[in-house]
């Protein structure tokens, strides 16, 4: 069982991701509603995986990815965002994210991707 930190400014998105992650048999140990809070929670909880939105207030997903990777170069970050622009996604990958999950998605798709991602990492 892997532990997760969910960082998303939408309460509904956090709730949906939490349900999918738990249904896939993993545990959500913390949630944050902006990038800065996410970085702080990462340092506090050291989760196995992070799901992260790109567009968030205070600190965006790309900046948050950079800070998390600075703190822990082995951090495993999954981008879960509605941003489709390749330049932005590339920027997120350059910052250290390993996987991109495009919103919107069906709950089963996220579950399947999480299982696949965890087995590959």
């Amino acid at each position, binding site marked *: 069982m892997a532990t997760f930190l969910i960082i998303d400014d*939408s309460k*509904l998105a956090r709730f949906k991701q939490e349900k999918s992650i738990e249904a896939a048999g993993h545990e959500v140990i913390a949630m944050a509603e902006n990038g800065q809070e996410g970085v702080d929670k990462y340092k506090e909880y050291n989760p196995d995986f992070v799901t992260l939105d790109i567009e968030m207030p205070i600190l965006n997903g790309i900046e948050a990815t950079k800070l998390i990777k600075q703190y822990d170069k082995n951090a495993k970050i999954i981008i879960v965002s509605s941003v489709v*622009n*390749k330049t*932005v996604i590339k920027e997120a990958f350059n910052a250290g994210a390993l996987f991109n999950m495009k*919103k919107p998605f069906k709950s089963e798709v996220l579950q399947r991707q999480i299982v696949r991602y965890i087995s590959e990492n």
Partner: protein
Amino acid sequence: MMILQYCIYLESIKTIRNNILKKSSSIFRIVLLFGIIFITTIYYSSYRGNEIVDKYYPLVDAAMEIKLETAYAYIEFKSVKNSIDDKNIDTVLESINRAKWYSNAMVYGGKNSEGTFLGLNKQHIKSKIDLILLDLDDFVSSMEQYLKIDDLEERSKLTKKCNFLFSNIMLKTDNIETILQSTISRDLKEYKRLKIGLTIIAILFLIMQLYAIYRSEKSRLNFISIIENKKEELSAKVEEKTKELQNLNNNLNLAFEETEDSKIFFRTTLDGLKSMIIVMRNYEIIDVNRAFLNFFDVETLEYFKGNISNSLGNLFEQNTTHDYLHMNRDGMTWVEYVLHYKSEEHKTLIKNHVFQVNIEKSIKNRDTIYVITLNDITELEQAKISLEDSIEYASHIQHSLVPNNELFRKYCDDFFVIWHPRDVVGGDIYLLEELRNDDEMMLMVVDCTGHGVPGAFVTMLVKAIERQIVGRINNSDEVVNPAKLLSVFNKSMKHLLKQENKDSISNSGFDGGLLYYNKKENKLIYAGAKTPLYVVQNGELKVYKSDRHSLGYKRSNSSYEFTNYIIDITGNTQIYITTDGFIDQIGDGNGFSFGKTNFTNLINEYSMEILSDQQEIFLDALLEHQGETPANDDITVVSLKFKRYN
């Protein structure tokens, strides 16, 4: 000769009998088909009737139970709050848990003493229930917090929060109840129509059956008379058949010669192909064409097998960064993988050449025969990569035109943007510009002609004109007038693209909306070209339809005067501007577009939620409608929330 004649006679009788059987069987099939339609209609009708009774009515009950339990919890909490000694909120928690149980039952289904609840399948209602569940959790944590603290000010804040959450839950549940009630009424209407349809089908079925019986009897009599006539005709045919038999031997000899010719023709054709063809029996290469031998620079297949490789999969490059075929993939051999995902395009890399792989499989004498085609697409791939790089760079340029989030936050209380170009770049764009001072800004949501690269070119032109306009505004004291600015866009587009006369080759332009915001004056001014503005103020939605006149096209009138709509920000004001991509998106399986009504309903139902949640809901609703259907246009929705400044 007599035996032959008898055989032919018997054969003819058999044919006639078969004809009668065939006719009867086709009549039987028609009767069976109508029978199946009839039974299916009855089954569907009863299923729909049961669905209304078994599914929706219990869900309406569940919604009422949520309200009841929440109201009970609220009253109980008030009495606990007012009591001095007893601070036990167990009864409150029990009620909240029951409300949560009913909420979950509405999403996933459930059973209790009140009845059986079947889960909903509408994603946007599910999202609404998810929001109720979140509010219920908030409600509990606020109540628990209230009982733990003594600070009066904090308590007052928490009481306000509890009151807000209570009314929010009630409103949302009421809303769900209304949606369910309207679903029931719509389904009942549909059920009535179904019943009428069923009656018509039953009558048709009866007529068809009578007609079938009539046809069957008529055919039987016809065929009896045909049998009698046939007897005489057959004697004459016997002679003819004997001659045919004599010719048969000669024809067989000719056919053999033709088969030999076909083999040579087939071989020459295969060897003449540019694609490599490989035939494998149970993974052993048994034949290849000339293109294959030439590619590996060998003369014979035997030489290839002995000196280069006896397996095709061994030749595939293993260490590639691209998604190419390898010997094994996802626990399957490459052949199994290609056959399993036959509809997908498969590529592999051999000796630095990219090949497109196709496989046909057949079974012959218990052996599996695979015919593999390898098309050399190296040049095409290189061209594709170069094109993709260029378009990706263009996307980078286009993305640099759109405003960053900080600019939105500077002027708005909250916002969301959905910007999904159909291809890597698109004809939709949104622009936000700061004007003369920190109090003024201008937002544009634009849908240019076409999508992809041509659309993106037009967006660049729009941006160039917009920068010019902003420059002019910043150097003047004039009041910003969106309607006049749209006219400037109209004229400039026509002029720059030389579309002022009807003979012009190009015909590009755009639809879009221009919103001017003045923070100091708490005022919004909007003008639109075929792009409505949706405004929610005090929970009420108003749609400003805008002018039905596009900008910049050849047919666009240069002197057209657009209309300004002025909106005073009296309290919290939310605006939505969308291009037609969201509304016109075709649904999965049904071919219908998402529609203005559904879009307006989304705003009506969810405008009270925070905008990041609204974005999720809008995207979920689109996904639910779109399913696996590809996007048919670029999609852009911008929503901003303004508050009144004194």
